[in-house]
């Protein structure tokens, strides 16, 4: 009973349903009146195949363009270069064989559950009104929403709302089901419950959908659900590794296979500058830890993760208590942090020289130990030293301040410099992070009103 319907038992089909061939996506930065416009690349040379019968998870940290990729695959937005092929044929525009389940559910609050579900069928004139109603009620039944047909979304709990999202997607009987972080807005238990039910429908073939593509930043989730895990990296968004999932029988247990895969994914993701293939190869041979490649993929400008200092201190203290070393997947599970939360922290540790991520572990450096043990004042001292030594942006601001006769710099000057490397919004966030770090380290002060950075002892002759 448990085995007769599972897809993995069948020979995996080699029919490619959807394919991304050399997809690039870039946005043009319009920096004011300047003639030279710069393009920020969000996706670089994406190759991806989605086969019949396959559940694909696209996994990556924020900024890796995974949601953008999903939208390009579904035809919602055009790519800058490259092709999307559906059954071997190049397509453009919204693909009508695709349905999407959205992160925020994207339900119409003014329509009832039934009306929301019927929405996708209304565009098919060949389906009569009674058929439409019948189909919708069937799906509502299937997804466990019966009794709620006439309720408005706001009357439902988060989990029930996402069920409506699923029902709306499934009623159009899509060939491919796309899911954009479908469980990330739900609490842990609700998400688990909904996941199990979806997997049951999928495995028992209660739904005619041929393949599912899910964007997620939850590593456990991808290992639990997917037949294929596509790991993406950022700056620019690219595919770093395509890993086969584990056998369906092994999922959801503390089996060595699943633990190993989770650990491998953590290792790949927390070492964004390493070659993923080398990491995998090192794992396969069970050999010594992969040597850090001498030449890191050079980034145009150091990217500051947007991390609060108190979080950084807190994590340093926690790891120090554990003996200066802790497994990242353990940390993630224990602190209820998904990689979108954990990865920036790890990056901050590495940038500031407080810790290093190797083999899926976070290890404190001597400075990290000092940070964990120090008093509030000592912490500031250590942080200031490290920030001045390693953080490019803070160094740059410091130099600009030193050069200025009045010891002050307008933020516009810094922003325009940052915009050579980042989008307008990201440049703003980079500056905000640098300001928050610099303020903590008492390196410089900042006046939000005038947007002026200045050295503390020479406060600008402004109000306050």
């Amino acid at each position, binding site marked *: 009973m448990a085995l007769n319907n599972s897809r993995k038992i069948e020979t995996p089909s080699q029919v490619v349903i959807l394919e991304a061939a050399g997809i690039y996506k870039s946005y043009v930065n319009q920096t004011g009146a300047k003639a030279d416009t710069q393009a920020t690349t969000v996706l670089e040379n994406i190759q991806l195949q989605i086969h019949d019968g396959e559940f694909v998870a696209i996994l990556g940290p924020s900024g890796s363009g995974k949601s953008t990729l999903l939208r390009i695959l579904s035809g919602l937005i055009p790519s800058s270069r490259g092709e999307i092929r559906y059954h071997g*044929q190049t397509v*453009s*525009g*919204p693909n009508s064989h695709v*349905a999407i389940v959205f992160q*925020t559910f994207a339900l*119409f609050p003014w329509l009832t559950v039934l009306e929301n579900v019927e*929405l996708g069928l209304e565009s098919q004139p060949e389906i009569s009104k009674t058929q439409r109603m019948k189909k919708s009620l069937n799906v509502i039944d299937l997804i466990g929403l019966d009794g709620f047909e006439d309720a408005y979304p*706001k009357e439902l709990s988060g989990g029930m709302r996402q069920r409506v999202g699923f029902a709306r997607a499934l009623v159009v009987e899509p060939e491919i089901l796309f899911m954009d972080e479908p469980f990330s807005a739900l609490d842990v238990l609700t998400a688990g419950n909904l996941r199990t039910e979806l997997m049951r429908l999928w495995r028992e073939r209660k739904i005619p959908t041929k393949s599912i593509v899910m964007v997620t930043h939850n590593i456990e989730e991808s290992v639990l659900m997917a037949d294929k895990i596509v790991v993406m990296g950022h700056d620019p968004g690219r595919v770093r590794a395509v890993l086969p999932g584990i056998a369906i029988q092994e999922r959801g247990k503390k089996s060595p296979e699943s633990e190993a895969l989770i650990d491998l994914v953590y290792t790949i993701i927390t070492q964004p500058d390493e070659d993923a293939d080398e990491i995998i190869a090192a794992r396969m041979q069970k050999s010594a830890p992969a040597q850090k490649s001498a030449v890191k993929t050079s980034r145009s400008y150091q990217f500051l993760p947007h991390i609060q200092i108190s979080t950084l201190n807190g994590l340093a203290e926690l790891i120090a208590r554990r003996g200066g070393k802790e497994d990242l997947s353990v940390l993630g599970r224990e602190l209820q942090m998904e990689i979108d939360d954990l990865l920036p922290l790890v990056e901050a540790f590495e940038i500031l020289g407080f810790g290093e991520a190797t083999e899926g572990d976070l290890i404190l450096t001597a400075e990290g130990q000092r940070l964990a043990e120090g008093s509030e004042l000592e912490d500031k001292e250590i942080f200031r030293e490290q920030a001045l030594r390693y953080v490019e942006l803070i160094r740059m601001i410091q130099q600009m301040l030193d050069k200025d006769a009045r010891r002050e710099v307008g933020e516009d000057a810094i922003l325009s410099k940052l915009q050579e490397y980042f989008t307008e919004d990201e440049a703003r966030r980079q500056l905000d992070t640098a300001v928050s770090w610099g303020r903590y380290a008492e390196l410089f002060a900042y006046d939000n009103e005038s947007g002026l950075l200045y050295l503390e002892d020479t406060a600008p002759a402004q109000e306050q």
Partner: protein
Amino acid sequence: MAQIYLPERTDIESRAQRPPVPNLPNSKNTQNQQRYLKRSDTLVIVLLVGVTALIIAGASRATVHTRSVTISLSPFILPLYAGYSLLRMIVAYIISLVFTLVYGHIAATNKTAQRFMIPILDILQSIPILSFLPSVVLTLVALFPHSSIGVELAAAILIFTSQAWNMTFSFYHSASTIPAELQEAAVIYRLSPWRRFLKLEVAYSMIGLIWNSMMSWAGGWFFLVAAEQLTLGSQSYQLPGLGSYIQVAANQGNITAMAYGLFTLVAMIVLLDILLWRPIVAWADKFKFEMAKSTETPSSPVLDLLQRSRTLETMQIKIIRPTQDFLSALLDKLFPAQKPAGNSPRSPRQTVSLDKIAGWIVTAALICAGIIGLFQAARLLMQVRPVEWLALLGMDSLTLLRTFLAMAISFVWAVPAGTAIGMNPNLSRRLQPIVQVVASIPATALFPIILLLALQLPAGINVAAIILMLLGTQWYVLFNVIAGAMAIPTDLREAAQNFHVVGWRRWKVLIFPAIFPYLVTGMITASGGAWNASIVAEYVQFGGKTFIAPGLGSSIAQAAASGSIPILLASTLLMAATVVTINRLVWRRLYKLAERRFTLA
């Protein structure tokens, strides 16, 4: 220019937190239930008959009418006059709504058109509308010399110009801020264009649209009263209606008739609120774009009655639903959903929609109109001598002084009163409905009465002018302050209490910063309103005499009366320029400051 400061969409309703409506007896007794049904059916039928009668009466009158109308002061004719006035409002409102939906939709969906359309809207709403009334009336009367259609049209256009802008802004703003995922869902589930428009754009904008409609409707009364009785030089144009009734009564010094007229006006406004706006607000609650179930939902006994009515239910099944089905089938035929991409390769070029073409046509038409208008304006302005310009500038500063005084008075009484009402739930429950009724009386209707009293004083017209400006504007300040005071978080108030922040320090630390964004919004609206009101306030014909308070408003009115178009244009432009300049220099800066520093996140 928002009329009530809205920190979030969901806060819209907090402005007028309606008093809790007593619940209908929820008896399980079926007999009781049945009696309810009957009563509600009677109500529905009466309403249907009433509306039909109104429309027929309006239509028949249009053909019989000649220009010289005499306004009867008999109280028995008041219901008919009220009907005429209401009909005018309805027509103007429908025009405003259609304009709003078309203009807002194009501006929100067409990037090219948007670049022209939004600044144009911004300019249109800064122009003192009343100054155009005389010229509009003259033109339209000339176009339809033998009927009252010209004057009727002029009234409709005037009311339209007082209603449309804020509604359009609200709709445009909502329609262009629809969450991305909802838009994507609409694309992926292939909503046809008209479904997208109704189920996404209009639905998403519904709440803002309704609140702005209510504001526009209130503003409409103000201009309706001004538009029904017009004196241009030696000629006077009258439309039978409540506004003209009140004015004629005031002119003749007939206090009893004035009281009748005012009472009817207030009664109609209150009835409309109960029978129309409250049910609509209660019904529209489902359009609120929030996922949390709010604790307090607006309710309306009238809506409950309607929803329980059997007659309506039968109508719904027999007439409305089939009509809906027919219409949607028709619309589906007319505007089919986009062809699915699927297997067939499709070039994105084909998606150039009707919207885009319509946008281009509108843009082109606007540009042409603009060029012609500019040419004409330049020709006229050349005729204004420098001395006259200087004189106008002097007048401008006098009106500036008056608006400043009116705003200062509003500030002085409305801030303490509004704070008191807003911070005390008991007081606000009791006073809000009263304040709303008082505020809903259009200042123009009260003006004759104020004149009657103020003209006894020395420099009476000056006092009267300031009072009229005040009447038209103080409510914006008051309502905003009430909304602001109600929005002060309890924990902040408790913290202030805990640290013994009292007296002046309480104002400085807690109240002023918290209500500041609301206050600025109220003052912006009030400022614009005061300038506009100056045109009717500074130049008054009353009891056969003309009273003039020197100022830009009276310059406009005089120029219109004497038919000197160049001066009229020059003074109107000067007023618009002044309003825009003050907005940019003072209000917009204060508003930015409010958003940056004093927003309770």
